[in-house]
């Protein structure tokens, strides 16, 4: 191969490009980076948080009901949506509301696409943070101003442990690794 040095050079280049590309793709795999999720997020129903949480002043925990009791904040059951929307056809987008009723009638779960996810190997207990007095907006951003959530709020700490640790340091919570990583 040394007789044709450009072949060797090509091989080295291929391996370098390939491995860099591979490593870059791995990074995106494990840390929930903003760019990747945004590319593929399209919700089955265009649910507007701003109308529900701001205009109508609904509490986050009306829908995300287990946030103060459980590690998991909880997604609203279809019955919760249908509970109001059986009687409320919606003014601006009645065709989206009709989709909700359709799912409820068929007894099918609405396949929401996940936007907010902490990294693998982390246990995040919602109830501890709510109990400590944090508002949902501190991590999830001003959700009540958002229409359809297609990507994280830029302030979302879930993709970057540094932001979690910073808050823990500022508030005197434990910095022990095994509090979250087990």
């Amino acid at each position: 191969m040394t007789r044709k040095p450009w072949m060797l050079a090509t091989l080295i280049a291929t391996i370098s490009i390939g491995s860099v590309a591979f490593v870059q793709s791995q990074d995106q795999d494990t840390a929930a980076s903003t760019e990747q999720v945004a590319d593929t997020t399209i919700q089955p129903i265009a649910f507007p948080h701003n109308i529900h949480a701001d205009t109508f002043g609904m509490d986050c925990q009306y829908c995300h009901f287990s946030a103060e009791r459980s590690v998991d904040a909880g997604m609203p059951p279809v019955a919760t949506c249908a509970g109001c929307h059986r009687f409320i056809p919606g003014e601006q987008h009645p065709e989206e509301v009709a989709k909700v009723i359709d799912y409820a009638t068929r007894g099918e779960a609405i396949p929401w696409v996940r936007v907010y996810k902490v990294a693998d190997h982390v246990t995040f207990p919602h109830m501890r943070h709510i109990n400590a007095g944090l508002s949902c907006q501190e991590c999830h951003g001003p959700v009540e101003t958002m229409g359809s959530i297609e990507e994280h709020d830029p302030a979302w700490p879930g993709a970057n442990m540094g932001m979690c640790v910073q808050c823990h340091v500022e508030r005197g919570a434990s910095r022990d690794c095994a509090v979250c990583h087990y």
Partner: protein
Amino acid sequence: MTNGIKRRDFLRVVGVSGAGAGLAGCATGEAEKLLPYVIPPDDITPGVATWYTTVCGECPAGCGVHARTREGRAVKLEGNPAHPISKGALCQRGHASLQGLYNPDRYPGPMLKEGGGFRAATWDEAESLLAERIQGAAGNVLLINGHTGPTLSALFDSFVAGVGGSRVEHEALSEAPLREAVRIAFGQDVLPHYAFAEARLIVSFGADFLETWLSPVEYGKDFARAAVVDAAGSKGRFVAVMPRLSLTGLNADEWLPIKPGAEAAVALAMAGHIVTSGLGDAGPYAGLLQDFTPAVAARLSGISAEAIEELAEQFVSEGPSVAVGPGVAGQHRNATAANLATLILNSVAGNVGRTVHVQGGWTGQKARPYSDMQEAIQRMASGRVGVVMVHGANPAYTLPTASGFGDAFGRVPFKVSFASAPDETAALADLILPDLHYLESWGDSNPRSGIHAIQHPVMRPVTMFDGKQAGDVMLSLSARLGRDLGSATFHDHLRTAWGQLRSDVSGASDADGAGDAWWRDVLRSGVLPEASAPAAAQDDASTSPSLRSSGSALTFGLPEIDGDGMDFTLLVYPSSRLYDGRFANRPWLIELPDPVTKLAWHGWVEMHPDAGDRLGVRNGDVVTVTSPHGSLEAPVYLYKGIRPEAVAISMGGGHTNMGRFADGHGVNPMVLLPAAVEQPSGALVQVATRVTVEPTGEWKRMATIEGSDDQLGRPIAPAVELAALSAVAGSAHAEEGGEAEVHHDELKELNLGGGFVPVPTEGRPEDFPLPGSRYGEYEEALSGPRWAMAIDLDKCTGCSACVTACQAENNVPWVGEEMVAMGRSMAWIRLERYYETIDATQAGPLDVRMLPMMRQHCGNAPCEPVCPVFAAYHTPEGLNAQVYNRCVGTRYCANNCPYKVRVFNWYTYTDVPAPMNWQYNPDVTVRVDGIMEKCTMCVQRVRDVQNQAALGGDRSIADGEIVTACQQTCPAEAITFGNIRDPESRVAQLVASERTYRVLDELINTQPGVSYLKKVTFHAVGSEAE
């Protein structure tokens, strides 16, 4: 490049580089979906577990369990503390129920035999076909079933009575000889209940009461209570009188290695000696006892007459005592006589009513005689059965080939199996109506007088499998056949039966309007509250029955054994992991190392090292074992705990149609046995034949977790003599002071080498954190809890329930035989077993040490400083933690660990066939390859309690609130976990005991967080440091 680039070369370059860039596409861009409930169930909060009370259905003991479910899936079973049998503990087979529930080999639905195999059918098709065949059979219906609850049993009876036919119950591990002996001796049709906790001397003639006999969880708990040193300095003693030491036998303090079959002679000689010493009354058996003097027994058993006499004297002087007869492992042709002899011995020593309870004993569930099956086989073979149905039994595997079951079964025109997963009998059937697993079914249990418990489904049936409860099938079939059995579903049937039970027991009836509330209470607590407490149902010394004379002619001498001229007596014993073979398709149980031999996955033949020398075989040499009835091949395991003229093979392996994990592993010793019936009980004879053993010349690498069975002089599992303990507080302190000085001298030398700062410690609460141990800069290290564990080796029996409990709780994977043979077993906790004193040729003391070894959470951990990425580190709470996402798989930590308790995921073992992944605990990370893992002291449970405490107004955590999985399940209550910095905590008090030590600590100064309490022996211990 002077020649210029040719087009072909250019295309080649572009193509290859393009391929390199294409690797960027390796990332999966798929988004995750979040699926909410449609209508949320009231009792489920996502992320919070829901618990249900039920009864384990895996063996007839009937332990009450609490099932932990997450989002509608059962993920863990724990003993029900309020249940009188399990009292909060559970054995490894109970834990592995989950692998039966989620077994990928379960039938997908009803199966109809067509051509050479099975095809799927609908329930409607299957049931109408069966109804048609039953009508055609015109009264020749046979139902064979294993252990069931009383309501289902009664339903089977009504069904069979209605269609014309008969029912036979078949339990492979049957105590029929004991039941017959009780009938002869006391005129009652029951199995006695033994109060081990009250006994100061326990003598076992072979019964494995810590493994499979009668009620192993309950008896394990009671045994530990008896064996512990009480405040007066007295300790219960256990003497094993048996040819082969089972795990139960290994826990004995003394071993009389009698010849197989000599149990009756020894028991009678002991009873006779008690009578001639004027200490007891033989009643109607005086003449019999005169025939069996200690000299006669010595000749028959191979044990000296002095040892027998001494034991007899102790049996009275060290009272209350209890003697238990040979269990299934000792079932020879005189088994009834052997059990009767044991009952006579108990009666002569005055134990009946004190430690042996005839009234209030076990129902006959565990005592079905094989002779019933033999009769059924004859009927099937002669064409007198039109339809045969099998539920909860696998006679094609559990019966010896010589019984002829396979052929007879094949003769029946229409054969049905209710098996939920494949087994050898179902493979022969024409129609399979898969039953639901007990965790998905309704039922009840009545194992003993005064205990009525409900079996409650803990989740909807696993959606992948279309099963139906056998009770529902019976009701539906009856309806098709035009008979109304009173209820539409088995649940209703059960509810009615329990309404009746309630009125029978307490007079209250459902008509009083409180029926529904009462039923909800029953379902929540799991037991019938109005039933008389089991203790009240038992007899006591004044109400206990007295001995009656035996009408039948029994032989009390050595039994007849086939195979004259062959070398070894074959002992076939039940497996504490696989039972009679029914659990062989559960990887947790096959991979659980056998508690005696520490072998996993494959089968083996045990023989004494002397016999091995004579034959010229070593461990692993494959031999052919031949009896007059069959032969098999298995590797040899040289075992010091068996008489040199016997060999032993465990039941449970050698399946041919049980599933992907079971098939091809192990050997089935039933092929070596004749179909011999013991008279008068009708039991199947297990010690029936002699065998020859011939080396084949091949060698098998055995899958064992054991490095060595010898401590090699290291203080790994030291013991202390009882006499040394009873020394009063004063001298104990002086001893401690002396030790501490020695400690300091040794450690000063370590310091000279420039090593870490050595710190002597007795582990007192005020010692923590220890200077020189690694805590980082956390301030919490100075004030928060320091988690530690104390394990009492005097209580630990080596049963290994903790291993399976840990596996269930922490998503610990199984790895397969090849990996175990390579030393890559992933268990976070293992039971080490060391022989100190064991002699198979004469009566003498027995000293076998059991040591549960898990990650020690060392204060001065050798694994922490060597991790290049800080994945292994010490938390301020004293745990040695592993941060899975930091781990890069250097494996230096495992290399450095002196206890070898770190395990590495060489492959992604956690990719398991569906639906086994439904069992995974959502609170614990599921690890992939390249990650090191080890015991975390159930940190998820610690965090859970800490979260609850924080939510509950920042209250403090009570001692005993956090319970690790191993601690929770241990029947012997050997493990204690808690905050060692709290002087009031149980763990701090245990660590202050004079028996406390830490493994290898004074040699290597690792300062483990797990302290052990030395086993207490009755004889002087050897020459370890202590």
